[in-house]
């Protein structure tokens, strides 16, 4: 209880907006057209939504933790307490121009269903996730013989919320399977910098620490 209260800003006053933004957030923001309407699923403390707002984008959020919701509300963001697995079903079709799922897909119970919802609710979806095919992951499993842990994914296998890890290659396959069109794909290195564009998929799958994808619905009847 005391810890919770401490986590909140003094007197509930929102802190000044962060000046530095996360690399993947900047990349996502750059993918969103100005003036569009965005739903950020798993918006945390609203950093990405704040960034989008500075670009004239009308953002909404869903966040699992009430502390996160509280912090977002204090920042003036419109955020609903909810769960990607259960609450996306209640959003109407075509409600948003973009639906963003940032670093959350691997923590959902049904990633495929969630992905389908993203592209039902939004005309486009932007999905980012940690790449389990990253060379350091492979090395830890191959040489160390244990489940990989990294700076960005420090949890042990028995208490991780991440129950559906995939590689970039796996994700591309899923998109093909459910008839999703990949408009843009970017792999980021360990420092959040984009890898060069003209590299082959296998290279991204090996050296991308995370993948960021701009998706849209493929033509019907393909």
């Amino acid at each position, binding site marked *: *209880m005391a810890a*919770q*209260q401490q986590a*909140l800003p003094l*007197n*509930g*006053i*929102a802190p000044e907006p962060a000046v530095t933004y996360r690399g993947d957030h900047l990349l996502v923001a750059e993918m969103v057209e100005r003036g569009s*309407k965005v739903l950020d699923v798993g918006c945390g403390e609203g950093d990405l939504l704040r960034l989008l707002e500075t670009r004239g984008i009308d953002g*909404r959020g869903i966040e699992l933790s*009430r502390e996160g*919701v*509280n*912090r*977002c*509300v*204090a*920042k*003036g*963001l*419109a*955020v*609903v*307490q*909810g769960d990607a697995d259960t609450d996306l079903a*209640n*959003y*109407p079709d075509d*409600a948003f121009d973009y639906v963003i799922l940032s670093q959350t897909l691997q923590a959902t119970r049904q990633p495929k269903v969630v992905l389908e919802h993203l592209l039902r609710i939004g005309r486009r979806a932007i999905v980012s996730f940690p790449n389990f095919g990253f060379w350091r992951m492979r090395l830890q499993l191959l040489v160390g013989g244990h489940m990989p842990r990294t700076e960005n994914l420090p949890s042990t296998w028995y208490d991780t919320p991440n129950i559906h890890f995939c590689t970039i290659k796996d994700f591309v396959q899923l998109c093909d399977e459910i008839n999703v069109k990949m408009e843009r794909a970017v792999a980021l290195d360990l420092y959040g910098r984009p890898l060069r564009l003209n590299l082959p998929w296998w290279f991204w799958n090996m050296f991308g620490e995370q993948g960021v994808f701009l998706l849209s619905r493929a033509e019907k009847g393909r």
Partner: protein
Amino acid sequence: MANVQSIASPAIHPEDRAHETDHPSSLLAKFGMDQPLKLDCGIDLTPFQIAYQTYGELNADRSNAVLVCHALTGDQHVANIHPVTGKPGWWETLVGPGRPLDTDRYFVICSNVIGGCLGSTGPASTNPATGKVWGLDFPIITIPDMVRAQTMLIDRLGIATLFCVVGGSMGGMQALQWTAAYPERVFSALAVACSTRHSAQNIAFHELGRQAVMADPDWHHGRYFEQGTHPHRGLGVARMAAHITYLSDAALHRKFGRRMQDRELPTFSFDADFQVESYLRHQGSSFVERFDANSYLYLTRAMDYFDIAADHGGVLARAFRGIQTRFCVVSFTSDWLFPTTESRALVHALNASSARVSFAEIETDRGHDAFLLDVPEFFDISRGFLQSGGAARGLPKAGG
């Protein structure tokens, strides 16, 4: 023979409260024959009056007004000593200097609802046409009627747009009715522990309460003022039953368990052996001191009739189409009277209408009553919502 004790007679004489009905110790807005209140039942209520309290100051451009809507058994005394009971205001935890609803920043208005019994015209008021108490001659009122009356008060105060409408339970219903009926007059709305419609279970509980009142021989078909009686037993039972619905199994267990009241052993009677019985009887008897039985019938009825979706072809989202109001919806985990599912249904409808809505479910075992109690998480989100809304409305920052 078993020892039987029923609810104690009120310590405060009903006439003390009755005086507040026609001559409240509050600000009073009187509306004459030229300004009738057009009720949903088709009747024009005229003349009528609204008793209200204000806190803080209205700013120069009249942009900082907050309307607090009270719940079923609340009144306009949201943050001052109650003139009948002498107790602190019912939402002093939320409203006051430095509180989430900061009276140093906002001009807070709270009015007694139409149909109430603390100064706004209701069944306990004197009917000017007959010189007698209205009683059951008073027309049936609805939540939209209450809100219509509030718009007339706000007009009179010269306020075009409310910065925020805030309410819990029946107050939340009013806040939502404001947004559905007068969206352009509501910049933001904080709706707590409420719903856009009264559920079958809630109607059932209200019917139980009304039947308890009407079964009291002192009720006299609503003409108890003329008979010099007051159905305090019936109203007390109604309050006891209702009060259980405001709490939760866990809260009752934590507060009372099976503990005995001032005794070690059961008395083998129907006396209040258990603390929980004694507590409920106290709730019943203290309630009847400050509340009119007929008013209880009318206000519970108004809640029963409430259903925003029904007024919009059965589709809730249509009620909020294109709305610009900023919403914050709050529910409590252990509230089984207005459970989170009801708030979620509202949030889904608001999402479908592209409304700007935030929603949080606060974890507490204190049941529906949590919205009136000291729940820091609720205050935090309320404060954050109001402050960020204030910034968006261009109100000066706290302390500025």
